[in-house]
């Protein structure tokens, strides 16, 4: 009975947050990013390129490892924090639902919304580049592989940035540092230091799947199964951490 009550509560928050994420002004950001990516990749695709290798590199660099964490940060770091700051969290905080369950009700729609947004961006970029060159079986394979990588990334980065949103009162500063400096810079350094980024494990998984571009020749990649487990572990860790902090936070 209590479990049913918890599921009903989580479902209510999920439905509400999902609508809020996908049909709010933030949806415009997704469209702008999609247009930007399509323009950049469309221009690149019109040049004298090796379609499979260069196209894969663009999906890799521009979408998976730049816009992916940035979009997760934009959506995730503010989702709960904004509600705490504007006090609209009250209806959730005064519900007969453990706040750690409520947190899950925020996480699920966030991860789905980020995945859908990045799917739109990925599709726009893919079509803009490959439609000018080749849309054969191999390119579709690349598209599907990146769609899966983006979905995995959406769930992990969302867990991370949602937790950042409840850990910090000004999460955007930490979020910007993490998305640009840590993931963008530290995650690209050679040697063991890059293993402290989500990007490294996503690339390790991708190196096993993708046959083209720099990702296919990622020599420092870890075992793909172990990398997948690390990503799953990070996801669980961040969700549990965020849920615990949210439950213990005083809502003044």
């Amino acid at each position, binding site marked *: 009975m209590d479990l049913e009550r918890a599921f009903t*509560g989580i479902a209510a928050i999920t*439905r509400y947050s999902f609508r809020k994420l996908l049909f709010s002004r933030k949806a415009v950001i997704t469209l702008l990013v999609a247009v930007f990516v399509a323009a950049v990749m469309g221009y690149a695709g019109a040049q004298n390129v090796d379609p499979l290798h260069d196209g894969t590199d663009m999906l890799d660099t521009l979408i998976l490892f730049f816009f992916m964490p940035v979009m997760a940060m934009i959506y995730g770091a503010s989702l709960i924090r904004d509600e705490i700051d504007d006090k609209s969290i009250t209806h959730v905080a005064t519900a007969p*639902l453990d706040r750690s369950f409520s947190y899950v009700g925020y996480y699920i729609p966030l991860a789905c919304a980020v995945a859908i947004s990045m799917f739109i961006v990925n599709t726009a970029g893919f079509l803009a580049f490959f439609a000018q060159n080749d849309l054969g079986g191999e390119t579709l394979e690349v598209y599907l592989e990146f769609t899966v990588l983006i979905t995995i990334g959406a769930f992990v980065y969302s867990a991370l940035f949602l937790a950042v949103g409840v850990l910090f009162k000004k999460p955007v500063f930490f979020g910007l540092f993490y998305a640009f400096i840590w993931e963008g810079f530290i995650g690209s350094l050679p040697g063991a230091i890059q293993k402290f980024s989500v990007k490294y494990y996503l690339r390790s998984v991708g190196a096993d799947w993708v046959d083209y571009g720099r990702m296919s020749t990622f020599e420092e990649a870890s075992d793909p199964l172990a990398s997948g487990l690390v990503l799953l572990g990070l996801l669980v860790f961040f969700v549990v951490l965020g849920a615990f902090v949210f439950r213990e936070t005083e809502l003044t």
Partner: protein
Amino acid sequence: MMDGPQNAPTTVMEVTALSKWYGEVIGLNNFNLEIRSGITGIVGPNGAGKSTLFKLALGLIKPSTGTISVLGQTPWGNPRLHSSIGFCPDYESLPSESTGREYLSLVGGVHAMKGAALSERITEVARLVEMNRALDRKIGGYSKGMKQRMKIAGALLHDPDMLILDEPLSGTDPLVRKEIIDLIKRLNKENGHDVVVSSHVLFEIERMTHDVVLIYKGRAVATGDISEIRDLIDKHPHNIVIEGENIGALAKALLDEQFTVSVSYNDGRKGVTVQVSRPDDFFNRLPELIERSGASVTKMYSLDENLEAIFRYLVGR
């Protein structure tokens, strides 16, 4: 649902030596209180600690020291208690981009209500707060009064035993104010909800209940029935206005009495304001003083008869 007003009052909230600090700022300071069933008014100026008390009662914040018990349970870390409490905050908490129905659906959902039962309850509560015609409009377009009603609807939706209403009349016009006061009284009388309602305007609370708690600077300065609170101030200076003919002679006679603290002429010198230390002695001696001075009193009233004056006195002592 609790038995409401027809049965003997039970304790709905008990606070013992409760303190809450926000860093170096004191929210509540060694606060003691017992609230019984019915309507209880919490009165105090802005920053007195009313909202802090409510946040502690809802488990939104935890006490620094002391204990608080609501309906026999400790609020912090106890979300089950929220099944029995409906809360209407004093701040804007409604999502402006949603319709009233969407908001109430979310509130119902987090209280494990769903399907046709939830839809029916939304309609029922919206009718109760007279918001049924505005249910499908965006909350962003609501007036202040409509938003207050919608917050009360959200608090009522799961039919709680107890309602905590933080400044529900704030920012509303006199007509809406009267309607909300009537609604609160109806919720207690007809629906049996225990109501704890706060305001910084004393006469508003007086129109809802005679059980009041006066809070000032994080402390309960007075608790009980309004008449008991009035008894408290009878031991202290009272301000009485006397108007009529030959008031100057009466003022002179009053100055010779020990209970008179001061006498001052009002604008136009048609009357005087007398400050007395022992009101009972003043009223006993007054007929004789009027007769002796030859004054003719046409009007007399106390400046301390309303709650506002009592509050000013009590918090200022």
